[in-house]
């Protein structure tokens, strides 16, 4: 699948493309702070997310492609700050992968919520969303 967004019926024309560009800009800035190359990012229609991430996921990180895939329809249901937490969570999987390779995800045999790499990514999203809130709003302009 290419990085070109597939526009869901719920998204106004051009909205997905604009948000994807903004996400790319945001992730480039955050990547620089953490000394890593930025991941690629794709916003996809909720009906297409299962093929990329698994059922009902709001987002995922595809290490083979160093790509964050986000479910447009799922994120549209969230508060804007919760969207930021999801983005930072997935970004941290990218950091984990670049720092430790596949070994970073060696706990996949455990239940999802008990996997250390998921717990850390969740903590990263919650903690650093407080710092990146301003940058997030400035770049995305999503304040309601």
């Amino acid at each position, binding site marked *: 699948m290419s990085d070109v967004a597939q526009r869901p019926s719920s998204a106004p024309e051009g909205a997905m493309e604009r948000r994807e560009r903004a996400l790319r800009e945001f992730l480039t800035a955050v990547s*620089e*702070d*953490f*000394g*890593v190359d930025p991941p690629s990012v794709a916003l996809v229609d909720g009906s297409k997310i299962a093929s990329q991430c698994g059922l009902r996921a709001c987002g995922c990180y595809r290490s083979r492609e160093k790509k964050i895939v986000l479910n447009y329809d799922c994120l549209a249901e969230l508060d804007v700050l919760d969207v930021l937490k999801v983005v930072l969570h997935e970004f*941290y999987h990218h950091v984990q992968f670049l720092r430790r390779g596949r070994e970073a995800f060696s706990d996949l045999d455990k239940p999802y919520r008990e996997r250390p790499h998921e*717990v*850390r990514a*969740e*903590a*990263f999203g*919650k*903690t650093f969303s*407080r*710092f990146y809130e301003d940058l997030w709003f400035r770049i995305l302009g999503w304040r309601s």
Partner: protein
Amino acid sequence: MRVGEGVGGRRPRCGLCSFAVASLASDLNAIRSLASEAKREREAGAERAAKERAELISYLLPSAEVLLENMAYLCEDAAEEWLNVISKSVESIRRALSEEDFGSAELRAESALGFMSSLFARCGGRCKP
């Protein structure tokens, strides 16, 4: 080793180091208070309340751990030896918690907090506005 220079001698974003250090200090302070409360609750025979405090600590630990994991990238002059000492303290807190040794968890948090001022002093070097 001097850390925090990251890839290609980049500078951390201004405020990011102070944010990370302040967040870590806040987490450690909360852990210390909760461990102290858990110890008192247990001494008073309130085992359930003690376990509830321990559960709250377990929610704070991943945040402290992820901050430590990244401190070296965010604070230009964060000295590795201090980060190691604080990391060891946080590991000890996790161990003490699994053994339900709340007194030890409190002491370890106290000890880690003692090093935080050294980390704070290292914020404010070169940074990217």
